[in-house]
């Protein structure tokens, strides 16, 4: 289990929507996919969702599976609307310019370290 704050910092990710207590959220599992059909099969609690999808549906899907946070990878810029939509649904949303592979490698090391 890792603090969301630690994971977000490791990715140099910027917040698009940061609910007040986001730094305290714990992450048990990380799920990476660009296919909504696959995200819907993700099991577990306290999930951090990593994706390069930019549609509203990603947020809705994250909400449906009860994900704790979403990081959009490979994105230097993100439509402002996404941040607003995330705020509406109370989803913690971040973006990082790091590519997906790089992001996963960093998160993998972190999650494996005790």
């Amino acid at each position: 289990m890792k603090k969301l704050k630690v994971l977000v910092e490791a990715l140099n990710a910027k917040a698009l929507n940061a609910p007040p207590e986001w730094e305290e959220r714990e992450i048990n599992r990380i799920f990476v996919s660009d296919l909504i059909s696959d995200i819907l099969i993700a099991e577990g609690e306290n999930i951090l969702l990593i994706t390069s999808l930019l549609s509203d549906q990603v947020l809705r899907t994250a909400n449906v599976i009860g994900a704790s946070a979403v990081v959009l990878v490979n994105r230097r810029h993100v439509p402002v609307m996404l941040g607003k939509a995330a705020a509406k649904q109370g989803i913690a949303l971040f973006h990082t310019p790091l590519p997906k592979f790089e992001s996963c490698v960093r998160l993998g090391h972190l999650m494996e370290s005790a």
Partner: protein
Amino acid sequence: MSFAPQPAEDMSLRIQELAGSLKIRDVMTRKVFAVTRTCTMRDVQTIMKNNAISGVPVVDDKHVIGLVSVHDIMNAFEQGWMQDPVAKHMVTGVRTLSEDQPLSFAMSAFSKFPYRRFPVVNHNNELAGMLTLRNINMALIQELSRQLDAIETESGRMTPAATSETCIFYRIYRIARFDFEAGGKASGELREQLQARGIAPKIIRRAAVACYELEINIIAHSYGGTLTLYIDRDRVRITANDFGPGIPDIEQAMTEGYSTASDWIRSQGFGAGMGLPNTKRLSDEFVIQSGVDMGTMVKAVVYLGNGE
């Protein structure tokens, strides 16, 4: 879109019912451009052009004595008859409908005769309006949406009479084809409802995902339909009904990885062929019925007591 008339026998019961309850008077165009027998073909052509219509009735003291269609105008143009009075070239013996007749009567008239429009007369046999297939289509669509609206509004407020007193929440959502924007509305509300009742997160998740999968199925694969949520103390029941096209091979549709999704649907991040298998996996009870050209019904039940 084809305007080929539907034989009355092929219409769905629902449409027949609607068509029986509406009168031609409720549906026809009342603002009619008519001419008298001394007007020229040129006059009619001008009226058609200015008002974007394709048929003009000819009246004598409000009684319909003929009809001029675009076809007649083209013919007159070719033959050099544009300055002739309409009486010379109009179609006579025009079949009219009466404004008191039910709409179903008009619909069978459209399938019986090759005409694209009928003048409508009142009980004094005077011209009162015009009826086209477009009028009928619009009226039926409006009436259907009005009835759906009423069902939708009502469903959020009260529990259906047929259900037991244990019902906690009941709502019907109307879902339109390809409206991905609206996908997640029902599952979002379901999640809120269950959270407010302190249901275990794991169960909320199963119910919400099952609901979302069914919402997306209606959006991506059907012509539209409804999704009904019913929550009581022990379970959530999600019922998805759509208007077609139906699933020819349910076993195939239930196979992981089998999908009929188009490239566009895939570009939205869907279409991995996991929707129905995933819904079944997450549900404690699962029923699917489908008829080709009729529609699909899926019922998924999630028990609220499991996994706590």
